[in-house]
């Protein structure tokens, strides 16, 4: 019963708004650019630092110190935070069910950025998998965002 009520509210809200406008697209664009860019920078930083050789406590400590002093890692974290802020802001006026599927494009963007910035090889099978993941996330995002009773 609540599901239908919620659906009604969502529909009314969509009717009230003049449709997806420029700022919604702009903030979604920020989301799908900054999150993959952040992940690519984290990848670049971690590739430079390297993994712990034998995962001994002293080894892990040295890796941890390298992480906290890496500009690439901090830049990556800043990009992820920027993406998260854009996500929070866009959710203040746009529906979650509209924003969440749009964010699925970030999987395709991360592959593109990984290819161009890090020079990683993305073979056709991986591209196929990424496109299928985007489609799956899109389908998940088109489901009712709330299934529990309102408190």
């Amino acid at each position, binding site marked *: 019963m609540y599901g239908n009520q919620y659906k009604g509210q969502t529909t009314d809200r969509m009717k009230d708004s003049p449709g997806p406008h420029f700022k919604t697209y702009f903030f979604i664009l920020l989301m799908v650019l900054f999150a*993959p860019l952040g*992940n*690519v920078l*984290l*990848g670049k930083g*971690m*590739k430079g*630092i*390297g*993994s*712990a050789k034998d995962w001994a406590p002293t080894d892990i400590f040295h*890796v941890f110190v390298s*992480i906290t002093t890496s500009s690439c*890692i901090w830049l990556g974290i800043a990009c992820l935070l920027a993406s998260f802020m854009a996500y929070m802001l866009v959710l*203040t006026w746009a529906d979650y069910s509209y924003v969440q599927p749009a964010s699925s494009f970030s*999987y395709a963007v*991360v*592959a593109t950025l*990984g*290819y161009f910035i*890090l020079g*990683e*090889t*993305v*073979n056709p*099978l*991986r591209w*196929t*998998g*990424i*496109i*299928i*993941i*985007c*489609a*799956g*996330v*899109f*389908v*998940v*995002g*088109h*489901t*009712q965002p709330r*299934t*529990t009773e*309102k*408190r």
Partner: protein
Amino acid sequence: MREYLFLFIIVVAGMGGDLCVSRAMKSVGEVHDFRPAAIFQFVLRATGAGWTWIGIGLMTLAFFALLAMLSFENVTFVVPVTALSYAAGPLGATLFLHERISRQRLLGVLIVCIGVTFVWLSKH
């Protein structure tokens, strides 16, 4: 073997963190007032909930596992396979938050799993 371990931590700890924060937010209640003072009050209430801190701890663990995995795997492999959290999420949400999972959401989860399988196979 270690990629399985780190992927498991990323997905399970990430999902656990999301669920704990979600549970904390539901206990705090819906936000209707977006003025700075009201948001500050909301942050105070949210940080006072024990589930918030458990969630933040689990998310931190997932983040460091992501960094560890990125140190030996390509980002074009790691990020897509972490989409498995879309499959683990509904399972945890059903058990922990008593949410109902629709057929369409299950279909989406299945599609994500197929995509992740393709990405995983592309490594070999």
